[in-house]
């Protein structure tokens, strides 16, 4: 679009006024023409050209966010299709559609129209199953994307805001999914709503009012389906789209993070420009995600509501199971002990329900939202971070993440306690007690194991840098000993293993000042030093050039020109841990990257 939009000096608008420099080919002329027409009216050429040249780094884990984005778009698209046929009404009708087993059965219009979408509208079932599979893929991808961001430290400054937005998106996705799942008014989803009404009633003081407000009177009433409908197709999608747009704009403004590697620094982005490479890859990837969802919709049945029957409060549903993303809340309800309900001064306090049903999700997301700020404070870290952490290089964070995931999965598996009991032929009591017990030790255990694994991976990295790769060549020394020659890593391979900043726990300054008066904030500082110690006391820091040089002064290595060691340390005295790297002075502690 370039030439046609370039400005001309005013005095050129006379005789011999030069025409715009014509683009070379016919096709280019055409593009230039349309773009020029738009640019004449918007001046967008500069900005769009900047965006087209923007560089995006490549890594498989960056696709998780893309999957989330694309499956959300597929939800939006297929959802709009569904609105053309779905009737959000609890009004009673008698079924006369083409699904024979339900002929003549009384049901709500919502359920009837969902049956019609499934049986009487050509291709309707595909769209419905696409919508549901896309919703499941959306929630899975959002979660996986969240873990990627957490474990690589992508939430650090300046991206804390985007982490918060992401957490809210993830929480709303669950609510949106639950609202959608409840719309068809089949026996399963109605039972889910029945439980949701019970959750609301359990809220201390206001519970019954809350339930009556939401359901406009006694359960089930006629209001809940239309209300959920406007929440599901209007309110939440609007918020989701708004937040999602902010999320993406922030990614573009802050530029994507990248994994450390040769040539990649905290001050650059290495990757492919949007035009043409990234556009083709990311654009193509949308079609791949949509295509995979379509294949799933074609081949794997999801939510066959015709098999459940219309909602009715009295028939018993056998082994009801919600969509996976509600599983952890359901599981939490199953393993909360019932003595948490009690009466005080004649009022009933049902913590056995309120904790799991009303408290868990806010607590879970509250902790997640707070984490970047807490970690930043503990580290006293004020710098910008654009290079990702390798999870092993931040063992305590990685281990905390795994511990949190462990809680999540315990709750989620607990939602299958009846199925597990049947499959394993065990008593459901034992299984439930087992899950209750695991809550108290398994997360701690997983924390410890993960941290150990990280530390040993880090030591392995050090080892690789110091001693190189096994070359397979056996060498015989003059005095008849054998050893295998190790090949040094080349600088490109070595760099990712040594690039990270060394870390140390924060020093605790004396709690009193020079005159022996207690300093302000000393308690806060003490807490911070304690936490910092918890995070970094057994940090394994990267090999320095001096250490590598020293390692070369061993058997099988030529001594390089470094200060020779004056004495050796007996290997059996070495515990294999390193503490603080004394070769670095304090100014390196947490400053931003120095490359």
């Amino acid at each position: 679009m370039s030439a046609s939009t370039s400005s001309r000096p005013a005095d050129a608008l006379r005789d011999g006024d030069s025409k715009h420099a014509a683009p070379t080919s016919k096709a280019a002329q055409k593009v230039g023409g349309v773009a020029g027409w738009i640019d004449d009216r918007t001046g967008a050429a500069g900005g769009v050209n900047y965006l087209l040249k923007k560089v995006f780094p490549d890594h498989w884990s960056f696709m998780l966010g893309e999957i989330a984005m694309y499956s959300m778009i597929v939800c939006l698209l297929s959802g709009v299709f569904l609105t053309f046929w779905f009737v959000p009404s609890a009004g009673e009708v008698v079924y006369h559609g083409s699904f024979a087993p339900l002929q003549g059965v009384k049901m709500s219009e919502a359920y009837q129209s969902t049956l019609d979408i499934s049986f009487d509208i050509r291709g309707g079932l595909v769209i419905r199953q696409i919508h549901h599979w896309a919703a499941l893929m959306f929630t899975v991808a959002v979660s996986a994307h969240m873990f990627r961001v957490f474990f690589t430290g992508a939430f650090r400054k300046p991206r804390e805001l985007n982490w918060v937005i992401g957490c809210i998106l993830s929480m709303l996705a669950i609510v949106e999914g639950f609202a959608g799942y409840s719309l068809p008014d089949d026996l399963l989803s109605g039972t889910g709503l029945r439980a949701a009404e019970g959750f609301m009633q359990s809220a201390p003081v206001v519970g019954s009012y809350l339930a009556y407000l939401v359901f406009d009177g006694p359960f089930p009433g006629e209001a809940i389906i239309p209300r959920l409908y406007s929440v599901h197709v209007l309110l939440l999608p609007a918020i989701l789209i708004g937040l999602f747009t902010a999320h993406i704009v922030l990614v573009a403004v802050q530029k994507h993070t990248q994994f450390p590697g040769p040539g990649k620094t905290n001050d650059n982005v290495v990757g492919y420009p949007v035009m043409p490479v990234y556009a083709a890859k990311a654009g193509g990837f949308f079609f791949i995600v949509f295509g995979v969802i379509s294949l799933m919709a074609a081949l794997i049945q999801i939510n066959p509501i015709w098999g459940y029957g219309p909602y009715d409060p009295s028939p018993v549903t056998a082994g009801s199971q919600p969509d996976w993303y509600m599983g952890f809340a359901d599981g939490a309800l199953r393993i909360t002990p019932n003595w948490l309900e009690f009466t005080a001064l004649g009022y009933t306090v049902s913590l056995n329900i309120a904790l799991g049903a009303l408290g868990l999700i806010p607590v879970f997301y509250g902790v997640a939202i707070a984490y970047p700020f807490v970690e930043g404070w503990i580290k006293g870290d004020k710098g910008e971070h654009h290079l990702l952490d390798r999870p092993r290089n931040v063992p305590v964070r990685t281990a905390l993440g795994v511990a949190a995931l462990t809680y999540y999965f315990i709750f989620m598996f607990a939602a299958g306690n009846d199925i597990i009991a049947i499959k394993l032929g065990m008593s459901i009591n034992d299984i439930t007690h087992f899950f209750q017990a695991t809550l108290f030790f398994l997360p701690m255990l997983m924390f410890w194991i993960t941290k150990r694994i990280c530390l040993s991976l880090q030591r392995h990295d050090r080892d690789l840098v110091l001693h190189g790769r096994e070359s397979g060549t056996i060498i015989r020394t003059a005095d008849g000993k054998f050893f295998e020659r190790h090949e040094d890593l080349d600088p490109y391979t070595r760099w990712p293993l040594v690039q990270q900043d060394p870390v140390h726990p924060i020093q605790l300054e004396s709690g009193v000042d020079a005159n022996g008066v207690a300093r302000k904030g000393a308690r806060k500082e003490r807490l911070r030093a304690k936490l910092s110690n918890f995070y970094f006391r057994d940090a394994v820091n990267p090999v320095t050039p001096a250490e590598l040089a020293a390692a070369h002064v061993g058997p099988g290595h030529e001594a390089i020109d470094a200060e020779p060691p004056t004495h050796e340390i007996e290997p059996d005295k070495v515990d294999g841990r390193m503490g603080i790297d004394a070769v670095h002075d304090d100014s390196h502690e947490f400053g931003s990257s120095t490359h």
Partner: protein
Amino acid sequence: MSEHDTPDTAVVPADDFGHGAVRLDEGHVIGTGGLPDRFENPGLPPHQPRMSDLTEAGAKRAEKQVAALFSVSILGTLVFLVSYFAIARDTYVFIPGIGDVDLSNVVLGTSLGAALLGIGLGAVHWAKTLMPDHESVEMRHTMRSSEERRQGFVDTLRAGGETSQLTRRPLIKVTLGAAMGLFALPLLVQLVGGLGRLPKNELSLTYWSGEVGPDGKPHFKPLRLARDPEGTPIKAEDVTIGSVFHVQPDGLLPDPTSDEPELRAGLESGILEAKSKAAVLLMRLNPSDIKSQKEKDWGYDGIVAYSKICTHVGCPVGLYEQQTHHLLCPCHQSTFDVTDDCKVIFGPAKRPLPQLKITVDDEGYLIATQPFREAVGPSFWERGQ
């Protein structure tokens, strides 16, 4: 660090160590020997050319592969269009590994999938083989604006405050603040006020309680126990040991066998709401198996009636184990012991299922002699009041 690792000391002066101490296993040294503190970033690695960069044949092959994938997409679209019209609804086929499936759904979904995947895979393959694979580098800038810009922003805000005289006129400031703080209230009140009505005592009443009069109080009338969903009343002799009856109050469901038009029609509106509180389970036990005296007294000859609505969050309880006389809730597995006044013996529910006091009328039908004495279903704050 020395051979004695002391992780809790933060920084140890370097001259605590022997000069140049080295731990050979880790190559740990004190003193740098004049080397830099850190390794240096070696810069981007040399570029590796692809097959399609090296030979025209390689590029040609890639071109054909991309074109083939795009053709798959075209084919998928055509198949979709044809089968949309050609495949009749209600055609079911058996696919091994999946089972009986709706043919139209399978073909439409698969062809749509092919149409999409063809485009997607083609584009990605094209990008990977033929588009430039030289990495570009873009520089970053700190997010923070320059000092002047930040100052400029603050100045503009302050100037705005001053020129509008906001800072000098506290009256305006205070009233504006209050007005802004309050204006959302009408909207909020409208929303909350209009959403629903107040529960009053409704959560504690069921259809068994009788019609609520103008005085707001229910007027009890003994109702027969009727089968759910048939609507027919139940005789005591029909209830055999080990059987379970799902029950609703007579008059709620249409009873086709009744002579009274009202009972024949059933409830006109609010059926689901009434059912969801009035549902009852009826079981007959050997009277000697019943441990609770109250349970025996409220039953009739070993026949007992309990609310079917779980006291946890309200699912219908209905899995009855005949041997143990346990009732199991399918939602979160709360288990109630029917021999002991339906007390909770396992699970997250706290309270026993409320019992409905029954007897027989002069025709031998089971009737309720009083309404539930407490609220049925999930707990709520004021249920004990």
